[in-house]
């Protein structure tokens, strides 16, 4: 036992937040090691140490009159065997083996190491280092529940299990990262999700060898390795009701400790445009909302390019009064139309980026200053024409309809490509850029399924259910064939 203690102390020499304590209770030596940063100190002092004292002291009553025990008491040893696992009243206790288990992982995960009678026990006394459950910060929920995930994986699993209360919701976890030992788990409903997909994801996660996992994006990049397109093929979300909705469809959720975002796969292109809040509203009103969103997608990518090609190549499509007004505005501007467009788009991107970075104190003032600069001042100074500001403002506003940052970045790249093509060849350039865009979308694989699922391999039932209209919930009897083999919603 002394060897063990010396071993522990020597290895943990430079970690000053680790405390060692030796107790001698009724001639029984107990040795405790824990990390002060990670434990709940009231739990250790009031509970662990007190229970140890009680357990070791309480056994004395039985053998008071035994001769052996009296002799031992005189000498100063205590040979009673205490089976701590069955007597201590704590929720998590594990007996460790010095050769096989990594003792340091347990100390550094918030466990208290108790060395007693040549046995090493690890008792969980983790402090609660997380914030409470609050509203989601990066997604807005109009009608749905307003709780969001936190950084503790067990709390997140709890939030999901509150909604899906069946034993078929399975959870498998592993620890990944040689220095971080982060818990990574996948959840799925076993009689809905396809088992090939689960095996595929498990295989990919188990192959990961890396120093540390800090965020769910690390896992996302590993399992999306072959994806060359700009769009992401998994959904990142902060809301447990979205995760439950997708789990019931047959998708798989990947959870990572210390990250409040959960990954859902596979994802299709229409999932980035449609919103779960559609399910919480009346199904007939949702049609117009969806049409507006698709138009926003087209507007945000094509409007600056369309304006450029009309102004420089095909002026006959513009009505005459508008044309004279444009010509009058462009008289005072020294740059060609393409430079103007790129400058304005770039300025709006700077505005958006600074908005993301600035803290709450200086946030409001800076955005007002930015709007002033881009609005009146640039126009009066003669750098840009007023119509360009309207065009770029329309583009940026339509781009904000999408909530996933990867999608916004991908659309930004395609907007630039469209603008370059349109300024060189006009409408033909836009047609070529459309061919490249559609080909890039269609050739994306989302975990062996096509990314543009209801449209490209055309599936009319799914198109009627979710592309432009939403089928009313009482009439929606079957699940999607591409995600599950268990098609009908039955009673079990």
């Amino acid at each position, binding site marked *: 036992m002394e060897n063990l203690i010396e071993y522990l102390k020597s290895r943990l020499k430079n970690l000053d937040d680790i405390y060692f304590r030796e107790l001698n209770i009724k001639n029984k030596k107990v040795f405790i090691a824990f990390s002060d940063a990670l434990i709940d100190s009231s739990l250790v002092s009031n509970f662990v140490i007190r229970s140890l004292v009680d357990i070791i002291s309480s056994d004395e009553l039985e053998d008071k009159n035994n001769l052996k025990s009296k002799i031992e008491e005189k000498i100063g040893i205590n040979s009673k065997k205490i089976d701590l696992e069955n007597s201590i009243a704590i929720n998590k206790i594990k007996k460790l083996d010095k050769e096989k288990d990594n003792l340091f992982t347990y100390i550094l995960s918030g466990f208290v190491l108790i060395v007693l009678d040549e046995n090493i026990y690890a008792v969980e006394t983790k402090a609660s280092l997380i914030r409470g459950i609050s509203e989601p910060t990066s997604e807005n929920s109009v009608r749905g529940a307003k709780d969001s995930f936190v950084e503790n994986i067990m709390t997140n699993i709890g939030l999901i299990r509150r909604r899906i209360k069946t034993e078929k919701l399975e959870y498998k976890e592993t620890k990944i990262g040689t220095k971080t030992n982060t818990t990574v788990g996948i959840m799925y409903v076993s009689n809905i999700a396809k088992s090939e997909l689960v095996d595929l994801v498990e295989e990919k996660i188990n192959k990961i060898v890396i120093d540390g996992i800090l965020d769910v994006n690390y896992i996302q990049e590993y399992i999306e390795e072959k994806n060359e397109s700009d769009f992401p093929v998994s959904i990142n979300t902060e809301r447990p009701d979205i995760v439950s909705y997708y789990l019931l469809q047959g998708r798989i959720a990947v959870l990572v400790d210390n990250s409040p975002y959960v990954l859902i796969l596979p994802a299709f292109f229409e999932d980035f445009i449609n919103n779960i809040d559609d399910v919480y509203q009346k199904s007939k009103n949702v049609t117009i909302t969806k049409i507006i969103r698709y138009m926003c997608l087209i507007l945000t990518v094509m409007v600056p390019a369309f304006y450029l090609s009309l102004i420089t190549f095909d002026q006959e499509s513009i009505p005459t009064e508008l044309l*004279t007004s444009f010509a009058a505005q*462009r008289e005072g501007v020294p740059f060609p139309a393409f430079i103007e467009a790129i400058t304005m788009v770039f300025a709006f991107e700077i505005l958006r980026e600074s908005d993301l970075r600035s803290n709450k104190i200086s946030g409001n003032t800076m955005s007002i200053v930015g709007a002033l600069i881009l609005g009146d001042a640039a126009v009066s100074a003669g750098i840009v024409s007023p119509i360009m500001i309207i065009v770029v403002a329309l583009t940026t506003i339509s781009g904000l309809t999408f909530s996933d940052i990867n999608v916004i970045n991908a659309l930004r790249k395609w907007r630039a490509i469209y603008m370059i093509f349109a300024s060189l060849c006009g409408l033909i350039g836009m047609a070529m850029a459309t061919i490249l865009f559609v080909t890039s979308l269609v050739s994306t694989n989302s975990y062996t399924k096509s990314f543009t699922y209801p449209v490209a391999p055309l599936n009319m039932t799914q198109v009627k259910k979710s592309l432009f209209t939403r089928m009313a919930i009482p009439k929606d009897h079957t699940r999607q064939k591409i995600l599950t083999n268990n098609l009908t919603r039955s009673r079990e």
Partner: protein
Amino acid sequence: MRKYVIALLVFVIIFNGFSSIKELTDLAIVKAMGIDLTEDGKYHISAIVIDTSDSENTNSGIVYEAIGDSVHDAARNIVGISPKKLYLAHMETLVISEEVAKTQTENVLDFFIRDNEGSNAFYLFIANGAKSSEIIDIINTEKIDMVSFLQATEKYRGIANLKNLNEIIKTILKDGDEICANSISIKDEKIVINDMAYFRDWNMAGYLTSQESVLYNILINEISNIILSVGQGDNLIVAEVMDSKSKISIENEDTINIEIKIKANLSETSKDIKITNSEKLEEIENNFEEKINNEMLVFYNKIKNEYNSDILGFGNLLYRKKNQLYTQDNYLQKLNVNVNTQVNISNQGGINKTW
């Protein structure tokens, strides 16, 4: 591999696509154009170019004039005066002088058929008794919006019609159909839309009278709210036409049927007219019908004998219905016409004239 392809693509585009860029500030947007013939057979073009520094006013601008051997040549010579090239896609009016219309129409209009920027949706006018450059000058100084002017004339006076150049060329190319074009003249330094001019094939041959222009427009269904009047002095009755439809069909080998249906409202009656019962109303309707029938027959005789130009399209009708009469040379002389008019007076303006 893919990257090289895309890079090559962009490279090729950069070196070749720039030649077609037309910056907005390089365009001279033409609003109206006039073509004249000079003494030595060259074309004299005057064009109104919209002044973009004054953007509230899109009806007038600067007038440029130039002379050249052909229409395109003259249009290019304008670049000697103005810094921008003419852009004809938004043109609204084309005025050609009488000499051009009488001899050179085919040469002039070929330029407009072949040009690809415009869609030939503008209106053609003949300069009646004046030079087209003078008319263009007055349009510019008075800031006249020719399209609304023409629309109002077509609707309320009936001596002009709204056929744009596309339809005029279609009619010229048809066998057995001749066009009538609107004409403008200057009166007291103001623009007046005057009687229509009739053509024979590509060349102008003369003018109709005002009354005949109205009848012509009734017959080709291009008329809306004109007024008809019958009687004179104290027997004058005036009615406003609400709706008029005319149908031309072949009756037999050499007779053509014209049926006209007019719905009108009574708008003004004179002292001696009192409409008290339905028979009186029918009598007035019959008066209108007789008058129109007679005028139509007189008009047709004049077309046959004096004008000798098939402006009502009878020849084309015969060709479409495969009537063999069309293949003969003087088919116009051999045709007879029956006119049948129906006038329906629907209301009298809500009063019962009992005084």
